[in-house]
C-alpha cells in the first residue's frame, strides 16, 4: 500500500518517462544526430595543456638547479683568473727576452739592477 505522497511521486515519474519516450520521430532523429555530432568533437589542446604542467615544472627545477650550481663555475673562473695573473707576475720576474728588449737595457744593466733593488727595498719599508 503506497502513501498518497508516494503515489504522487510515482505518478509524476511515470508520466515524465512516458513523455520522454513518446517523442516524435523527427525530434528523436535530430537528438540522435546531435549526439553523434557531439561525440565526433575532439578536445583540442587538452593534451597539450596536460603536458604544459610537467614541462613547466621540469623547466623550473632545471632553472633552480642551474642557479644552485652556478657559483662553482664562477669559482673556477675566478681561480683561473688568479692563476693567469700569477703567471703574469712570474713572467715579470723572468729576464726579458733578449730579441725584444731595448738594447739600452743591456748597456745600462747595472743601473737598472740598482734601481730595481732600491725600489724593492722602498716597497718593503
Amino acid at each position: 500500500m503506497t502513501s498518497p505522497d508516494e503515489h504522487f511521486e510515482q505518478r509524476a515519474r511515470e508520466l515524465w518517462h512516458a513523455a520522454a519516450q513518446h517523442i516524435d520521430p523527427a525530434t528523436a532523429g535530430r537528438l540522435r544526430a546531435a549526439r553523434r555530432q557531439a561525440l565526433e568533437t575532439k578536445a583540442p589542446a587538452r593534451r597539450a595543456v596536460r603536458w604544459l604542467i610537467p614541462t613547466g615544472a621540469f623547466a623550473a627545477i632545471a632553472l633552480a638547479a642551474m642557479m644552485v650550481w652556478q657559483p662553482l663555475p664562477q669559482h673556477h673562473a675566478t681561480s683561473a683568473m688568479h692563476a693567469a695573473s700569477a703567471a703574469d707576475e712570474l713572467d715579470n720576474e723572468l729576464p726579458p727576452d733578449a730579441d725584444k728588449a731595448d738594447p739600452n737595457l743591456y748597456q745600462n744593466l747595472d743601473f737598472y739592477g740598482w734601481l730595481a733593488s732600491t725600489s724593492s727595498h722602498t716597497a718593503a719599508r
Partner: protein
Amino acid sequence: MNSVAGTLDTDLLGDARETPATLDAFLAQVERRAFRMAELQLRHREDAMDAVQDAMLRLVKHYRDKPATEWAPLFWGILRRRVVDLQRRRKVRSIVVGWLGGGRDDDGDELPTWEPADPGQDPLGRLHDVQSYADLAAAVRQLPQRQREAFMLRMLEGLDVAETARAMDCSEGSVKTHLSRAMHHLRDQLEDWR
C-alpha cells in the same frame, strides 16, 4: 494512470539509475528526457533542441575523461545553466522588442513574436494521459526556477541529493528546502491525483 503505466517499459524507469559504460550510451539514455526537461522550461522546441545539443557538446568536449558516475550531475548541470542562459536572453530580447515599437507593424497589427508557435506534435498524443501530463507540466512551470530544478532533477530524473546539489550549484540543504516547497506546491496544484 494504468494506461501510462502499461506503456512504460520497466527498464525505462530503471535506466536513470544505471551507470552507462560509454558516453554514447549515457547520452542516448538521457537525450530524450533532457529534451523534455528543456522543452518544459523553455516552452520552445527549437530552443530546447539547442540547449540539449549544446549540453551534449560541452559534456563531450570538456568532461569526456571524467568517471562515468560523474556524467549525470555534470550533464544536468550544464543543461540547467544553458536553460537559464536562454531564459535570460529571452527576457532581454522581449525588452528590446518592446522598446522598438512594441511588436507592432506600421498598421498597428501585432507582429509575430520572436518565439514562433510550437509546430510540434503532442508528446502524448497516443496516450490517454495527455491531460495529466499537461497538468503536471503546467504546475511545474508555475514553480519558481530553483524549486522547479530541484523537483525535475531529484524527483523526475532520479538524481540523489548530492548529485542534484552538484547540478544546481548549491548545498544539499538547499536542495531539500527547494524540493520540499516544490512538493508542497505541486500537491496543492494537483489535488485530483490523490
